[in-house]
């Protein structure tokens, strides 16, 4: 069985966001492989190590820097990668992103048994793309999983979704879509030899034309939603800070809870 892992290049979690002319100022941002996608790559590579999967393909849509995210996936253990890169893709909403990813799968022709995603990309934060891809391809889907058992011979997978108050256990026929989150596994730190090896693994580039798409179908032009404006969230002012004898500070805290915000 072959599997595909979807990898997005995102700003590092430590990034301080700045705005310029009502848009994101990207000049000082450091980019990483989306942390949620690390769980997905790790899971795919573990399936390969367990002999259940024979090829792990990493796919990213994004600008040139997305190549680095793909290298990270290859260093964890993906076998080859696909980068979909085209200036016209800028401003694509989630629907367009899903459409383009589906086209890339068709173009490559990989016969996948499973598509693995992160639960969310930590920049757009929508959680949309996996479900959109699943619907476009007509596949079962289990989102936000913390446990996965795959039986390629029987053609099925069992996945535990972390939901309010417990876990939903879903049984799915293959091929299927899963989205991965923390709790599923502990992603490894790639070793230096594996990082070196990753540099020699194949990365296939696709342009829009390669995928048979026109610029009007993607980017801002092809999207159903657009980001109209950015603003910084209202700054939370630091309030009171009290120090002193525990008995006294607790009295003040109780007064705050009871009289000021009235939760007691």
């Amino acid at each position, binding site marked *: 069985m072959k599997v595909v892992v979807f990898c997005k290049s995102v*700003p590092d*979690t430590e990034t301080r966001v700045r705005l310029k002319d009502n848009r994101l100022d990207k000049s000082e941002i450091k980019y990483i492989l989306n942390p949620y996608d690390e769980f997905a790559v790790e899971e795919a590579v573990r399936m390969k190590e367990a002999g259940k999967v024979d090829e792990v393909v990493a796919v990213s849509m994004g600008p040139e820097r997305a190549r680095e995210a793909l290298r990270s996936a290859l260093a964890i253990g993906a076998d080859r990668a696909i980068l979909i890169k085209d200036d016209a893709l800028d401003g694509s909403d989630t629907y367009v992103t899903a459409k383009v990813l589906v086209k890339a799968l068709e173009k490559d022709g990989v016969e996948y048994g499973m598509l693995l995603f992160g639960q969310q990309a930590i920049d757009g934060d929508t959680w949309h793309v996996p*479900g959109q891809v699943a*619907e476009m391809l007509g596949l079962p*889907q289990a*989102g936000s999983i913390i446990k996965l058992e795959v039986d390629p011979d029987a053609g099925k997978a069992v996945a535990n979704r*972390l939901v309010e108050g417990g876990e939903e256990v879903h049984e799915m026929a293959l091929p299927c879509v899963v989205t991965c989150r923390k709790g599923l596994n502990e992603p490894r730190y790639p070793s230096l030899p594996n990082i070196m090896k990753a540099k020699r693994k194949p990365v296939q580039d696709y342009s829009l034309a390669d995928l048979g798409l026109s610029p009007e179908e993607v980017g801002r032009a092809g999207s159903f939603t657009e980001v109209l404006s950015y603003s*910084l969230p209202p700054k939370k002012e630091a309030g009171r800070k009290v120090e002193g004898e525990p008995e006294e500070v*607790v009295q003040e805290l109780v007064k705050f809870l009871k009289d000021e915000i009235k939760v007691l």
Partner: protein
Amino acid sequence: MSVWVIADQRKGTLRKPALETLSEGRRLADQLGTSMEAVIAGHNVEGLCNEIASYGAEKVYLIDHEILANYNPPAYARAVGDLIKDKQPQIVLMGGTMTGRDLMPRIAARVGAGLAPDCIKLEIVDGKLKAIRPAIAGKVRVEIGYKSDIQMAILRPNVFERLEPDTSKTANIEKVPFEPSDLDTKQRLVEFVSKETGRPELTEAEIIVSGGRGMKAPENFALVEELADLLGAAVGASRAAVDAGWRPQSDQVGQTGKTVSPNLYIAVGISGAIQHLAGMSSSKFIVAINKDPDAPIFNVADFGVVGDLFKVVPLLTEEIKKIKAQEG
């Protein structure tokens, strides 16, 4: 032209975010001068229709089938999505439960409509929906505009105000036939492993008490739990506490955990790393208890107590007990 709400139910009960979403749907419909209608999918859920109507739905589309008894993404998406394609509502809303976050993208893809998730405010501008939502881990706020005729949004739980239900209303129900497809039978919820604690769900809780590495050991979380139970609160944790194995993954608040918006968030022995703040900085009030006066959590706290949590928390619990006893 109408505003639709997909009413999320589980095991025959409407979810709290569904009630908030119905309330917001009603407000938007009033602004647009149009009707608010709801869809409910499930099995043997007709009994919920009057409750839906009590939040102002003028019509309830009921899709009842055995295969919809539990959450089934392809079946739910087809059942609701095809009805949307048929009736062409202008706006479709759903609450941001784990079902809502999972299902709405599928429906949006099926319908071919724009979708904005995790919305904290919705506006009507020139007759069209505009959605306001945080992104990049809460570091920015964006306004999302739509180019599709059907405009879809997922609402962050605990943000939109719930209307007083009018229980005198009875539902105007329209039953929608549904036949499972091949794809629907390729997925099945085989078990629900309950991890109920008797406490409210983090994303829906009014008050949350969270503990971090400063708790030092798993058994010390009894302090946090006692305070939480006294306040009717949920218990949360930092990633450090979860990774140490002191708390389950489902308790984690932050960038790789849950995003919460309670009225009050009490952070105990949590430093306030940027990834933790990502999940809780939109809380209405924040209280921090930390022995380090320079801990970054104090930068966002409305009330900060600099002190040893092992002294402060038991005293606080005692004081609250006294107050509760006085109230009888």
